[in-house]
């Protein structure tokens, strides 16, 4: 009997799990989790998200632990705690919405209101989303890479450079890719200071980089209160499918700007946001399952995410140059165009830093915050279009997404 008990314990050790069929995949994913922790801690890559994601990846890949699944031998439910969190907040879409509330409560739209035409830079930078989308469809001609339209749309949204938007869209359209897409999105957001500057230098002349912009006028409290309301109104009229994202962003922002609900906006920014960040990170990380992560699709996603970022950056810079052609009296330094990809506030800081390399007295940070927060709105709008049109364009086959249904 003690032999039986011992063998029972032995047969459920992780050691044996890693050595059994498919176990090597779990071992590799755990190493990937450790790499994410290393990058987050040692290189400062978006640690607030990548540490929970990395840890979630590790926990989810421990054999026989079923922390992100259901224990088949359990008699008392046996639903792992990360699966509980996933079902509660990612499958339902609640967690990214709550994060967006907190982001709204932390965002100051002042620079955008002072110089509204920078909104167009935030629009231009969404170009990367759609190019990556088409890229994903094109590389599916290669054997071993199979993205349907749902998957391609989720990959494209990496180019939005906005974590909660990417997670929200992916959880709606292609939840099986959640792990790789979230990791790509947050990794490239962390890499913004490396990816963007060469592109910015390539596309601008030295004179352009030295352009000084007029100082931003002060924005009144009332304008800041009316702005979220007007954004929500336009969104409700034009694109209802974007209102969950845009609405929660603007709710958070109104709670902050109105000045009479500081208690609520404090909680949105702190206790609530941090709690949701922990839960969301663990849940997203748990989707980095070996069989869904260790394939050529993931490689494609990482590649396309990079393309999307680069293209969004470039398009933002180019549109800024076009705007200078059309309206030479109020010149825009094209270096702030790259901030339109979102990645708040990293991208704005990159604009400012590159600008100061050429003239240390040229302070672009405030000017770049305009396109930067415009990029958040732009990504949410692009997300709304994808959410509205993709399921209509590509109906499910027997309740499954085409790329998955074809292989069943």
């Amino acid at each position, binding site marked *: 009997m003690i032999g039986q008990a011992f063998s029972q314990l032995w047969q459920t050790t992780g050691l044996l799990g890693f050595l059994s069929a498919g176990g090597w995949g779990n071992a590799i994913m755990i190493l990937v989790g450790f790499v994410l922790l290393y990058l987050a801690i040692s290189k400062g890559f978006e640690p607030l998200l990548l540490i929970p994601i990395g840890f979630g990846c590790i926990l989810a890949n421990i054999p026989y632990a079923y922390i992100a699944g259901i224990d088949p031998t359990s008699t008392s439910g046996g639903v792992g705690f990360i699966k509980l969190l996933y079902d509660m907040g990612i499958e339902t879409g609640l967690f990214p919405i709550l994060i967006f509330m907190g982001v709204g409560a932390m965002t100051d739209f002042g620079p955008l209101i002072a110089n509204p035409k920078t909104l*167009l830079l935030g629009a231009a930078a*969404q170009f990367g989303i759609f190019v990556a989308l088409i890229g994903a469809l094109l590389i*599916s001609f290669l054997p071993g890479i199979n993205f349907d339209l749902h998957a391609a749309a989720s990959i494209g949204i990496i180019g939005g450079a906005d974590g909660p938007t990417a997670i929200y869209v992916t959880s709606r359209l292609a939840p099986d890719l959640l792990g790789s897409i979230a990791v790509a999105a947050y990794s490239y957001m962390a890499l913004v200071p490396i990816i963007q500057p060469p592109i910015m230098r390539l596309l601008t002349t030295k004179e352009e980089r030295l352009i000084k912009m007029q100082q931003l006028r002060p924005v009144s409290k009332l304008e800041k209160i009316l702005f979220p309301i007007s954004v929500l109104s336009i969104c409700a009229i034009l694109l209802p499918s974007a209102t969950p994202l845009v609405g929660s962003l603007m709710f958070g922002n109104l709670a902050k700007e109105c*000045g009479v609900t500081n208690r609520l906006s404090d909680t949105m920014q702190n206790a609530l946001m941090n709690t949701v960040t922990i839960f969301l990170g663990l849940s997203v990380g748990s989707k980095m399952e070996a069989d869904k992560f260790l394939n050529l699709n993931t490689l494609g996603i990482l590649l396309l995410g990079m393309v999307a970022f680069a293209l969004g950056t470039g398009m933002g810079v180019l549109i800024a140059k076009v705007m200078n052609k059309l309206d030479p009296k109020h010149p825009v330094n094209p270096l702030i165009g790259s901030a339109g990809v979102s990645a708040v506030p990293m991208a704005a800081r990159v604009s400012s830093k590159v600008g100061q390399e050429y003239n240390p007295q040229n302070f672009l940070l405030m000017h770049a915050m305009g396109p930067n927060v415009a990029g958040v709105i732009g990504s949410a*709008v692009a997300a709304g279009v994808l959410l509205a049109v993709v399921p209509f364009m590509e109906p499910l086959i027997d309740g499954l997404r085409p790329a998955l249904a074809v292989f069943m």
Partner: protein
Amino acid sequence: MLHQLPKELLLEQVNNGLILMVLGMGVVFIFLTLLVFSTKFLSFFVKKYLPETMPTVAKRPVSASDSPIADTAGAEIAAAIAAAVAHSKR
């Protein structure tokens, strides 16, 4: 062996992708352009018709959140009582 989606599906997908790009960038630009105009209009409107209310509005909520008046019910009992106690001690 590596899997592959059927060719005709792939071609239709690319076609859909191009449509999505046109629609998507179109809507993004229309949306944000409308937002440019509405923001400019709002700023103009506020400057022209509500210039005085600005500081008023700005101040009222601030004082409201400092003073207990606009705060939530119970939260302010303590403050109210503290004030009353302070009074009664004179």
